[in-house]
């Protein structure tokens, strides 16, 4: 379980990274290494060049200007979990962050790495889609913004070109609607068996964004009457599901229900033990 030979380079600017990726199309960016290093150790990934982006200080920021939350690609999951302003304005991100892996993984894993890796059971890709974020991508021509809804193509695939990297994500403030989160995993910190962000627009309608149940996150409009089973089933029909067994469908529905219930909680209850299973 040792990686194949690779060349290691440490970048200090995004321009370096883009140039090096252009020079070596089988090169790979390493951020937290929490997904890439295992793949390399299993020799499932064999980049010729490993470009370490951790020295690019410009990618390590959190800024909120009152309408948009600007997150640098190198922000660690735990930093999002701990950020007081995020907790106030985007509490669903706080709750979601605490479900990612364990403390040690959250201390190293990055937002950019999670989005680029595009594991369909991951929290961040779904969060970005659910919150209608934009992802900032930089390639040779410069930075362009891709709506999260267009960024993810399927299992572990995104629109990123080999010589492009993620520099950050921009999350708009959520307005009047309420967003809840729920997830079930076999153990604390595992990838989700099923998870959901549910937005309640408080007018009998809303949106659901599942993760762990299909090939990629999609934000789907749903009617939210008191009996909602049909709404959820119809929404699930719009997805390319991993597994159509009835118990899996029932689980996805249950999780959506729980996320909706979570959206109604306020204050400490919203961050309570019931909402946050990641106690470690």
């Amino acid at each position, binding site marked *: 379980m040792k990686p194949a030979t690779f060349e290691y380079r440490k970048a200090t600017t995004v321009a370096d990274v883009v140039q090096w990726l252009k020079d070596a199309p089988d090169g790979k960016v390493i951020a937290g290494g929490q997904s890439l290093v295992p793949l390399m150790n299993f020799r499932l990934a064999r980049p010729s060049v490993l470009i370490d982006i951790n020295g690019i200080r410009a990618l390590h920021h959190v800024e909120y200007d009152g309408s948009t939350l600007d997150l640098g690609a190198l922000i660690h999951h735990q930093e999002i979990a701990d950020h007081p302003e995020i907790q106030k304005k985007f509490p669903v991100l706080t709750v979601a962050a605490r479900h990612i892996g364990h403390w040690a993984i959250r201390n190293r894993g990055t937002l950019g790495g999670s989005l680029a890796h595009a594991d369909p059971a991951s929290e961040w890709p779904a969060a970005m889609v659910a919150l209608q974020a934009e992802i900032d991508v930089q390639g040779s021509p410069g930075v362009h913004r891709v709506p999260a809804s267009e960024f993810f193509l399927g299992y572990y695939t995104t629109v990123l070109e080999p010589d492009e990297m993620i520099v950050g994500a921009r999350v708009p403030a959520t307005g009047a609607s309420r967003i809840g989160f729920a997830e079930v995993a076999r153990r604390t910190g595992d990838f989700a*068996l099923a998870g959901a962000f549910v937005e309640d627009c408080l007018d009998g309608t809303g949106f659901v964004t599942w993760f762990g149940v299909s090939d990629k996150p999609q934000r789907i409009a749903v009617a939210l009457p008191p009996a909602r089973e049909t709404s959820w089933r119809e929404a699930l029909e719009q997805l390319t599901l991993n597994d159509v067994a009835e118990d899996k469908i029932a689980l996805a529905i249950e999780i959506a229900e729980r996320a909706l219930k979570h959206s109604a909680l306020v204050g400490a209850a919203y961050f309570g033990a019931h909402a946050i299973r990641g106690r*470690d």
Partner: protein
Amino acid sequence: MTEQAMRPQFMGARVKRVEDPRLLTGQARFLDDIDVPGMLEVAFVRSPYPAARIMGIDTKAAKAAPGVRAVIAFEDCPVVLWQKDAYEVGQPVLAHGEVRYVGEPVVAIVAENRYVAEDAAELVTVHYEPLEPVLDMYRSIAENPRRVHENASNVFFYKKYTTKGFDEAFPAAAHHLQETFRTTRQTAVTLEPRGTAAMPDPASGRMTVYASTQSPHRIRGDLAELLGWPENQIRVIVPEVGGGFGMKANTYPEDVVVVWAAHQLRKPVKWVSDRTESLLTDVHARDDIHEVEVAFEDDGRIIAIKDHLMADGGAYPAYPFSGAVGETSLASRVLPGPYQIPYIETEIHCTYSNKTPLGAYRGVWGPIASFVQEGIVDRVARAVGRDPAEVRRINMIRPDQFPFRNAAGMVYDPGSYGESMEEALGLIGYDTFRTRQTELRKEGIYRGIGISVFVEPTAMASSEAGSVGYESVFIRVEPTGKVTAAFGLGPTGQGHETTMAQLIADQVGVNVEDVVILHGDTDSAPFGGGTGGSRSGPIGGGAALVAGREMRQRLVKLAAHLLEAAEEDIELGNGQAWVAGVPDRAMTIQQLAEIAYTHVKRIPAGMPIGLELVARYQPERSVSFSNGTHVAEVDVDIRTGMVQVLNYVVVNDCGRLINPLIVEGQIYGGVAQGIGSAFLESLRYDEDGQLTTTSLMDYLLPEATDVPRMMTKHLVTPSAGEGGIKGMGEGSLIGAPAALVNAVSDALEPFGVMVNRLPVTAEDIRQWILA
């Protein structure tokens, strides 16, 4: 024994483990920390097929790769791990003509370092002609689709046992039920993986082998025999071992190849398993089926059990014993557990397959048999409509029945079976539980309670540590009065350096800090069986008591002579010897030791010079039974299938305790592993014979957050052996899975669920609810 030795100061005390500071600060030295200049490392090319003929091996490119020192195939190292008196086949240390499981070592690459070795391993081309794999136990028994070994039947162990009178009693009972219980392949997953390092000593010509093993002398003997070397040319040193759990009780192919390579290359050579290799090639365990029929009466009295036991032993018998035989044969003998079930009939089939060999994993037969036995009792309770605790009471062996011969002929020494259950039920609040349960169900909360009363055979004359029924201690009081004692045990984290020191300190009359325990070096330790089968406490501890006592007698004799008192009047303690009632007529043990070694003219006639001796202890009984009760309270989320363990109680009786802190540590760890067995761990083969769980992403272990706080209580029914000690290394894992899955069955009683498999997953539960 003088009166004072019977009032021990350290035995039974919560002495903190002397091992912990080095472990907690990262100072412990494990196998992979052993590094000497010029050390080479090994990577193995392993079989990607469950069954295939080897048509050719091309190693040219690998041999030519820079940094590679040797490429080894079976022809180079033609050693077969074969226990000829027990099995018809053995395992070649590198595949010979045919591969029989995924992960079987085929070629070894020795190179400058592991990276280079793994690169070169990719350059080896093995031409395979795949064969249809044997994957199913039932089909294997029928030699279907074929034999795993051309010249040996797939059924490599068969046994049938019937209690006299079974044939009449079974049909005569009022009721009968049937169930098939299935356990799934698991493995120990030690924190520290397996590994071996060997270094020839050019000066002496001897070979030093560092091994992460439970049985230092056994592996030395195995290597000597397999390689044809004199035993005294091999020194085995076992460094700190990060867990064994039975899995490190075997001698593995890699051990032999590493030692052979070091000898051949005259260089230090090391191999350390990575996690994928561990999951593929550490012995597996628990691949068993029990087809059970039970005969019982209206009141829940169980009259007879009929059990067809099957275990999939994998491709070869692990060396030198197959876990399949251990799991089934002992299960068949202890199946009635703590219950006075008068009749039993068992039939055992152990079969070969194209899977990893089966070996020992903590509890071996026990977690399986307890799961079956407690599953039977709960089914009977449900069938007759009585409370599961009540049905247990009716069937429980009573204190006046000891020594009790069970239906399979095993004799139990006294234990606290019923008492342990009553205590445990009291601690968890069983009286009020049923009311709480009913109320909660109205709110849609499915809470259940599971009871598991277990027996644990310990201190056995033969176990996975071999058939060495005794242990030895070499003890020396140093000239300064400090004590050094060496053991043939092979601790893998149990804390023997603490417990053995406690026992010796009491006997010799010194403080526990003044005793150093050595183990794991065959040059200094006396011959011993090693650690396994919960024998180190009762047998190793027994040897410590005997050695300590003999040393005490020497010191008393010497002190009596020097203090001019009768031996009966000498007392020892706190590093002193004194005349009873005259505390100022005293000498320190240091003074005594100094005289024993240097002023030898002052030694009484007939007493040997120095203070050194070897003592051995073999218990008179061939087995001593610990016992206890586990009770688990769980919530089952019927919508997600997730199980949460809310409360957990263990009442444990392992005779006299050496150190309650360590006993409790053993219990916590065993319950954690029980949670793994009950809900998470499973090695899964697909229909092509590929193991699909080759990383810890797929093979799920319990994590800290899955393990509840537990309440423990000790009962003490001493054994007849030295110190009244019984073993207790396995009982917690024997008892736990049954308690946990019975709790799930109880919670899901409204849905008619009775768990019959380990592990039970969230998916299983969701599907049962939907069905």
